[in-house]
């Protein structure tokens, strides 16, 4: 059973990692909590459902198209709502509240357009999981694990070695300083939304395959994704992915003893604990979150 729990934890962790990594890219560069990130995944999932089940477009077109649409969606939110707010030097708290407003708007818009009931994407036939030393894991779950690993390595090399990645880290550490050295930090922040939302698009697709699609899926995953990012260290990209696995494993092993109804409470107790004891998370650097 231990192996099955480990696998359950890893799969849950990978799903949270899909959300927390995109969120962390946006947070490190823009310095505010983009809570509507979960809704980007929801919009992507519904777009996939609409194009694939609705219009019957084959997946090798709809998958990349969904990722592109998600990136565009994130970019537009930044351009239309966040940028004007940032221009007026509003505090990160106002941006946080605005992002919660956007989240509520998107979730309800999806419910209005597609109805509240669960939509099932039957792209790949669901079969019994492949048995592996007594534990079961399905092809889709293996795909998710692999994709997240690729994502982890990709993000790590991107932020360490690519030009854009380094500039992004510079803007993250000190936006004012970055401006003085001629970096157009607004353009970089646009890029952070494009990349972060693209990952959310990918997350939307994979989660739709694993957990089906419904209007509130983004919000629930965002709460877990954010908790994962805080645990791993919001200011560090690889940290947010490690935090996701920590959360996934603690949740799944936790409800082995606790009644499972407390599963979401475990995420919040962890969130509260880390925010109080170590708000910069496992890897993050202390960014004046305290007094």
């Amino acid at each position, binding site marked *: *059973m231990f192996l*099955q*729990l480990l696998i*359950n934890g890893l*799969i*849950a962790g990978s799903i949270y990692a899909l959300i927390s990594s995109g969120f962390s890219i946006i947070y490190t560069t823009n310095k505010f909590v983009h809570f509507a990130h979960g809704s980007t995944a929801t919009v992507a999932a519904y777009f996939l459902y609409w194009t694939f089940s609705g219009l019957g477009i084959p997946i090798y077109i709809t998958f990349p198209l969904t990722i592109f649409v998600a990136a565009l969606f994130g970019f537009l939110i930044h351009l239309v709502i966040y940028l004007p707010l940032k221009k007026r030097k509003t505090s990160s708290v106002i941006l946080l509240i605005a992002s919660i407003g956007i989240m509520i708007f998107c979730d309800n818009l999806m*419910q209005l357009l597609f*109805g*509240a*009931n*669960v939509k*099932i994407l039957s792209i790949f036939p*669901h*079969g*019994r*999981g492949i*048995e592996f030393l007594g534990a*079961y*894991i*399905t092809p889709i*779950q293996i795909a998710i694990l692999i994709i997240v690993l690729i994502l982890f390595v990709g993000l790590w090399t991107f932020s360490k070695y690519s030009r854009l990645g380094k500039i992004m880290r510079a803007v993250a550490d000190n936006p004012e300083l970055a401006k003085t050295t001629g970096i157009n930090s607004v353009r970089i922040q646009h890029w952070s939304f494009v990349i972060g939302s693209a990952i959310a698009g990918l997350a939307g697709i994979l989660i739709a395959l694993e*957990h*089906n699609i*419904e209007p*509130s*899926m983004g919000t*629930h995953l965002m709460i877990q994704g954010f908790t994962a990012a805080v645990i791993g260290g919001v200011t560090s990209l690889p940290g947010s992915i490690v935090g996701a696995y920590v959360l996934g494993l603690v*949740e*799944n092993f936790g*409800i*082995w003893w606790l*009644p*499972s*109804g407390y*599963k*979401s409470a475990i995420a919040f107790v962890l969130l509260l604990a880390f925010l109080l004891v170590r708000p910069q998370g496992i890897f993050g650097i202390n960014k004046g979150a305290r007094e």
Partner: protein
Amino acid sequence: MPKKLGIMIAGLALFLLIGGGCSRTDAPTTNTSGATETPAVKDTSPIKLGWLGPLTGDVSSVGTANREGTELAVKEINDAGGINGRKVEVVYEDGACDSKTASNAGNKLINVEKVTAIVGGLCSGETLANTTVAEENKVVMVAYGSTAPSLTTAGDYIFRVVPSDSYQGKYAANFVYSTLGKKKVAVLYAKTDYTEGIAQVFIDEYKKLGGEVVLTDTFLQTDRDLKTQLTKVKNSEAEALYFPTYTEAAVVGFKQMKELGLSISIIGPEGYADPKIVAAEGTHDTMYTAPVSPENESFNNKFMAATKRTDVPIYTTHAYDATKILLETIKKVGTDKEMIKNELYNVKNYQGVSGEITFDKNGDLATANYEIMVIKNNKSEKYSAQ
């Protein structure tokens, strides 16, 4: 008195006035709306019924179908000339399976629309939120899906055409223990009013019969990852699993059961009749209790023809029956609320589409017999002990 404080006091005092002005009239409004009592003068104003159910939220797929069930019943009666020549009109309000929304909606039906009676709510929370208002204003409520045991003693004006969970849970426990002969069972249920009530009744009855409940676990209605709870079930020596839940979590639950290779027999409540569950992955050989309902086929065809749907979601037949009973009662005794209530208690052996309906002194179904259905290759059929 500083200016600002003055404005605030005036603002709140305004409410006092409204309250004061109306408290005199808040005594329950006895006079019925529209219809005058004297039968001599032919009154042709429409009879107003209220309908309450989830049109948004997790359960709205069932709610919207139930509404169409009611619409069908009303259309049939109106086509047949209405009641004593008066057309029937229904006001549909969204309860969203949540007590706050349902109380707002119920309040509007009773106080603004002045409906004669209400068909609804579906979720127990919706009905419970309106019992006091309904009692005060003597408005009959015939719930078509609220099975929570606490509704039995909710009031004289509260009726329901679905059996209380206490019957169904006991029936399921007896079936698992004696018919299937499973001595160890696990119970995994969603944290909602409907499922928790029925799970408790099942557990108590199963223990009384001498069976052993090796595992009791829960999950939130909004959870979509039940793998670890199911792993716990697999790890316990349970020979069967009682799995009460709403549609959304059931669909994901069955998929994950298949993925985890959980091979023990699965039993659930009548919620499984929802076509979305029957068509879901991994539901093969799943059994569920369902109230005996004769001649389903003819109603199903009629319903599917009228609504161009391809399935008849759960409680649609009950919504249809609730509406039909109410309208027939009004046909007999007119629109006086008190008389409607008293007449409803005399409903005996009414052959409804959802089954035989007899109200006991609490407004519950007196008789409730169930049968076991089993899902074979995504088709529901009667269980026959091979």
